[in-house]
């Protein structure tokens, strides 16, 4: 894992001092709320329906046991004893007092963490593959590149007042576990003629106008990464729309200019940027990469597993993923218990996960964009002991990628933008489909719920998506089918008229029943949908 040097530490410490001063000026009335708003947003502090929400950055979703434990401490000391892991691999606290925020940031800084640029119209926390450094299929660890980008984008003077927020994801395998093409910039590391570099996709996103980011450059060498990113951002900062916040994301610019014209402008800017000395030397990438070297795997660890305990077997089947190292597995801790709130964890659970990471996973955890936690490097011979401890704490639902492993935004329970509640619906669906045998029969099924068209719950990218809307003062839920955030990225389509809360759950059952009837061989839900088409599903739902 990356460790701060004196420079990195000084930057976050300075930020704490700066924000403490800004909060004091706000509390003293020297700053109006309008003036304070962009400052607090740059530090991840939102004003929600009932209280301030603080979003803490977890760069590329990677953290240590000590850092995780600090997240538990913050939940206990400053919030209502829980935290909420988000779709951008961060954590949010929903009940924060403004006057506590500087102390929280100071606590975070003491474990090399921060909330810098987790909101506001700036470059947000860089996200990545939650299995980075452990996945069997990656060509290189994407996190050193993400860290280079984190540092470059932190306090970037030219790009802190962009037309709108800006999200970057970096992956390094053909399987996309980070919804890369639904980011403002998606980067895939690739080899070209033996050299490692970056393929750039620009202009993806969800929100009101979902778009899949087109590829605009097939290869950017490591030592030109920053100048290319600068070129992409400068064209956006100059020409992105500022007249309408709903048309201000880069996807609209790329769409309105056309991919070719946007690319042409970026290339022109890049030719100029390359001459400015903006790129860290390759030694800097090498320095950072050393922190992400493999942990000390036991070379002769055994692949044997005693699966005689049937519940353990279910969990291993569903929640562990192939590791690049023989004798090891990637273990996913589902934060989607039956009837629970997707992504929520209590301080006690957070502490336990921190302990387990230290004990079984070389002191590393990851947060996934589907709101689960990963222990990336678990020796197979430790899996049973790990599972038992998770199970005792309610952290062993064996439902990874099944229908109850849903993504849900905070919705109307917390969010001032929402039109409908998301969490209670996710909870009800989780109850309706509680039977694990039934879930496993349905197989991989990505269910994603948003409480408004801003799409924080990724409904456009759900195999089944649900969009909450307000219809004449009552909550109404539209059903969408056919989305995917993976390498086969696609956008879901609305089936037709919306439903009540119970009605949409019935409609989901109708849809899954039809899938079971129509599926051929090993088809997943999404495969059957793509083969059969929307019409058959519509017919089943609406008659």
């Amino acid at each position, binding site marked *: 894992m990356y460790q701060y*040097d004196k*420079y*990195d530490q*000084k*930057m976050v410490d*300075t930020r704490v*001092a*700066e924000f403490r*001063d*800004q909060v004091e*000026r706000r509390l003293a009335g020297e700053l109006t709320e309008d*003036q304070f708003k*962009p*400052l607090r947003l740059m530090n991840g502090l939102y004003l929600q329906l009932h209280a301030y929400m603080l979003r803490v950055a977890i760069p590329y979703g990677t953290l240590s046991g000590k850092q995780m434990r600090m997240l538990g401490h913050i939940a206990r000391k400053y919030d209502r004893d829980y935290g909420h892991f988000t779709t951008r691999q961060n954590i949010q606290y929903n009940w924060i007092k403004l006057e506590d925020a500087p102390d929280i940031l100071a606590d975070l800084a003491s474990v090399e963490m921060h909330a810098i640029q987790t909101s506001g*119209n700036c470059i947000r926390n860089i996200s990545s593959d939650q299995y980075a450094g452990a996945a069997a299929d990656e060509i290189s660890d994407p996190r050193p590149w993400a860290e280079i980008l984190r*540092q*470059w984008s*932190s*306090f*970037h*003077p*030219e*790009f*802190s*007042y*962009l037309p709108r927020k800006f999200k970057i994801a970096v992956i390094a395998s053909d399987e996309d576990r980070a919804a890369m093409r639904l980011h403002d910039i998606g980067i895939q590391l690739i080899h070209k003629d033996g050299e490692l570099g970056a393929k750039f996709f620009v202009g993806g996103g969800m929100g009101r106008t979902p778009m899949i980011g087109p590829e605009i450059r097939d290869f950017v060498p490591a030592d030109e990464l*920053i100048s290319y990113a600068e070129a992409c951002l*400068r064209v956006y*900062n*100059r020409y992105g729309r*500022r007249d309408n916040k709903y048309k201000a994301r880069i996807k609209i610019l790329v769409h309105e200019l056309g991919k070719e014209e946007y690319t042409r402008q970026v290339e022109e800017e890049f030719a*100029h940027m390359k001459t*400015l*000395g*903006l790129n*860290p*030397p390759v*030694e*800097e990438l090498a*320095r950072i990469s050393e922190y992400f070297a493999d942990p000390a795997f036991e070379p002769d660890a055994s692949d044997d597993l005693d699966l005689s305990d049937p519940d353990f077997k279910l969990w291993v089947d569903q929640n562990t993923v192939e590791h690049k190292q023989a004798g090891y597995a990637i273990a996913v801790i589902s934060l989607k218990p039956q009837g629970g709130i997707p992504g929520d964890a209590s301080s006690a659970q957070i502490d336990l996960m921190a302990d387990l990471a230290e004990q079984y996973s070389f002191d590393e955890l990851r947060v996934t964009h589907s709101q689960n936690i990963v222990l990336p490097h678990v020796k197979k011979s430790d899996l049973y002991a790990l599972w038992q401890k998770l199970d005792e704490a309610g952290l062993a639902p064996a439902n990874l990628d099944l229908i109850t492993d849903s993504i849900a935004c905070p919705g109307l329970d917390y969010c001032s933008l929402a039109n409908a509640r998301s969490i209670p619906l996710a909870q009800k669906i989780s109850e309706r489909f509680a039977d694990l045998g039934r879930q496993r029969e349905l197989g991989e099924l990505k269910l994603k719920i948003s409480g408004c068209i801003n799409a924080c719950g990724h409904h456009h990218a759900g195999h089944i998506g649900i969009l909450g809307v307000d219809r004449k003062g009552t909550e109404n839920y539209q059903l969408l089918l056919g989305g995917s955030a993976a390498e086969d990225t696609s956008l879901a389509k609305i089936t037709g008229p919306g439903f009540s809360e119970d009605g949409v759950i019935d409609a989901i059952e109708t849809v899954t029943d039809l899938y079971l009837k129509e599926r051929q061989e090993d088809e997943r839900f999404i495969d059957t949908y793509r083969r059969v088409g929307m019409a058959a599903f519509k017919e089943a739902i609406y008659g």
Partner: protein
Amino acid sequence: MVEAIRFRDDDVHEEPAVSLDAVLDQSNATAVRIEAGEDARLLLPLLDRLALIEVDFPVFGDGRGYSAAQILREAGYKGELRASGDVLVDQIAYMRRCGFDAFAPDAPLDPKVMDKALELYDAVYQGTTDSRAPIWKLRHG
């Protein structure tokens, strides 16, 4: 309008700033003001004779002026680069990093708060036209 804040030693340029259209038409103007949506690159052929370029910020959240400033400095402009309009004390440090060396804010800035903000960060992560060495350069010499 309050008195401009300057980080330059030369005398204040007295000639009033003309619009971008005017300066492009009028070959002898030495001061120009560009609006947020205007293309700073149109000024590049004229940089040798310009002594003052004012870049307007209609609202502090409109960040186009930061890119305009960088483009002008990257092209070697040495004259006064003045940010005007909704210029707030909490944005001054980033403006300085992008090459602004004068400020004409709509509302007065508290000089003490401004000085503190400018001195706060003793290192930077990225290269800009202010020529401060980024942290990666300090690490690798």
